[in-house]
């Protein structure tokens, strides 16, 4: 009697650690259980940046201001790339703010395994938390930067009367989600591929820079008549164009290409999570 009762009881294991892993094994319940840790990581990312500074979080807006000024002179004044009749300062500030979010999230998530090997080697928690925390902390920085953008936007709307947002502005939260998912997905794929073979890491840094020129950050799509399709094939293009169309009321918008971006993002996110899932269990042996 006792033995049978015991054997029934011993079958109820909480955790079984074994070498075989399912290809698709997303443990969302576990992620939820660790939500406090996620928030802690986010807090750490934000707080540590401006520790021991006097201006604190204000430093987050310095970066977009500086790059906007540089772009204004180089691409606006010297190269005269044009901005679809949108005031140049506003044009560069908007797309720069978005681009900074995308590139920083991609850069940090693509180094998840390499940068956190010392923590990963000592303690278990769902590894996906770290790239997720980067996505969220980047988003908080983005919101701080958007305050500046909104102020400048209001100035151009009500004082200068030079731009007029349209109803597509309401797509903005959706655009943010798309961009967050895309940078997260690409980042996790890259970090998973670079745990054993580091070759890819060399490509990432300048690959992200090149990607900026393939994305309508410093120019409007309408500038390049011949390469239209090529530029739209970049899934980021429709995000940036929809953003500009909604906020400035100028530029190009296409439901078709936005749908393409959604499809692209969903696919890469699934691929990213599958790859990450397969690597996270053993990467510590090879990183």
């Amino acid at each position, binding site marked *: 009697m006792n033995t049978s009762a015991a054997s029934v009881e011993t079958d109820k*294991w909480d955790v*079984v*650690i074994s070498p075989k892993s399912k290809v698709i094994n997303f443990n969302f319940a576990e992620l939820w259980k660790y939500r406090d*840790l996620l928030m802690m990581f986010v807090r750490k990312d934000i707080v540590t940046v401006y520790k021991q500074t006097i201006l604190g979080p204000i430093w987050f807006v310095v970066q977009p201001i500086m790059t906007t000024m540089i772009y204004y002179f180089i691409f606006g004044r010297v190269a005269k790339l044009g901005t679809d009749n949108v005031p140049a300062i506003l044009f560069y500030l908007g797309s720069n703010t978005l681009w900074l979010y995308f590139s920083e999230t991609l850069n940090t998530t693509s180094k998840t395994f390499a940068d956190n090997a*010392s923590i990963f080697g*000592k*303690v278990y928690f769902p590894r996906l938390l770290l790239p997720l925390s980067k996505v969220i902390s980047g988003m908080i920085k983005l919101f701080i930067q958007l305050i500046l953008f909104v102020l400048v936007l209001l100035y151009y709307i009500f004082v200068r009367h030079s731009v007029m947002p349209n109803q597509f502005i309401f797509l903005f939260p959706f655009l943010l989600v798309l961009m967050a998912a895309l940078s997260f997905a690409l980042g996790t794929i890259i970090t998973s591929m670079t745990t*054993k073979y580091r070759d890819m890491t060399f490509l990432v840094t300048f690959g992200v820079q090149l990607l900026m020129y393939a994305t309508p950050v410093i120019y409007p799509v309408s500038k390049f008549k011949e390469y239209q399709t090529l530029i739209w094939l970049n899934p980021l293009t429709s995000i940036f164009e929809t953003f500009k169309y909604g906020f400035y009321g100028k530029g190009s918008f296409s439901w078709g290409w936005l749908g393409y971006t959604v499809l692209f993002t969903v696919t890469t996110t699934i691929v990213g999570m599958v790859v990450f899932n397969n690597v996270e*269990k053993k990467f510590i042996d*090879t990183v």
Partner: protein
Amino acid sequence: MSSTVIDIENLSKLYRLGQVSSKTLTHDFNRWFAKVRGKEDPYAKIGTENDRSVKTSDEYVWALQDVCFNVQQGDVLGIIGSNGAGKSTLLKLLSRVTSPSKGNIKVKGRIASLLEVGTGFHPELTGKENVFLNGAILGMTKNEIKRKFDEIVDFAGVAKYIETPVKRYSSGMYVRLAFAVAAYLESEILILDEVLAVGDAEFQKKCMGKMGDVAHNEGRTVLFVSHNLFAVSEICNKGLLMVNGRVSHSGPIAQTIDKYLKGGTSHSEIYLIKNKGIDWIGIPNRDNLTNCKPNDEISIDVSLFVKNLNMSGVFIDFNVFNENNENVVHSRSNWIGFTFDTKSNTPINLTYKIIAPQLAAGKYFLSVNIYQGNDVLLYVTNIEAFNINANNYFGSSIFLDGVNAITVPPFTISRNN
């Protein structure tokens, strides 16, 4: 009534030696191809046993091989073994840092593992912020940490500094805080790897007390890896001895420690801790010392070589240890007014004579300490020196086994050259 909380079956872990290179890519490809065809990993078959001192041509090694054991609820299991025996690999697998190559582990309850103190501590964050971050990394929720925060700070004894970034902490304060967080983890199973070797004597004592508390009063299961056999024997009730990636013995802790100390590999190496110009050569009459009688005078010839040192008034200390690594005989040359001079490029031959040693049967090890003033010139330990055999009933009448007392029997030290 106890129940099994950890059950480990045929656990194995294969590691590749050498560097990651294009060759690794070929191996990866072969492995993938074997998997596609539904065959076994081709490199798993050729892995050799993990003996770090023997050079092999094999590129793969089993850090753990067919490890089977189980842990009952409330057990405090001490895992011992020499360096590279697979203890840490085992803990890594248990804490899910990496996954096994073969076999499986079944666990009941929440595991908190502490393979290092202060994992994830960020130097810029304050003590308080780090307590929350570190606690969360170890698996606590925010509310749990909030509830225990005062206790943690109190245990660590850093209340004054709690709002200061940890980069300003002394290293001792840093580890105190880190250990305190871990000590208050609420988990059914606790895994510890050599973490007691932190802090000052007072804090170590506190940690030991806390560990004993966790184990004996709270009824939690603890797995503890340490080279500090005293700590292991104090805290644990069961032991697991690992040798070259395999479980060599498991059972009550005293028995396991005994096996470990009597094991061939544990005492085979001489540890040279310090050498400032005097080389340790050996004991020329070692062969005559393998069969001493309990009350015989023991005369040990000691051979040294001075490389580059001209000093006068050099002292020498001899300490004799038994198999349990307890210091049983202590002799200092200053007590009998013996000093000697060293000249570069000359050998020194000494004879150390223990008159009426009064030692129990067993193997004895010598530790030699040469110094001038406070300057240690040579410190060498774990030298196999002599065996005492007692083959009749009367000869074995002295039982010093397990007694920590140091005896100072009369001795002489003389120089022969």
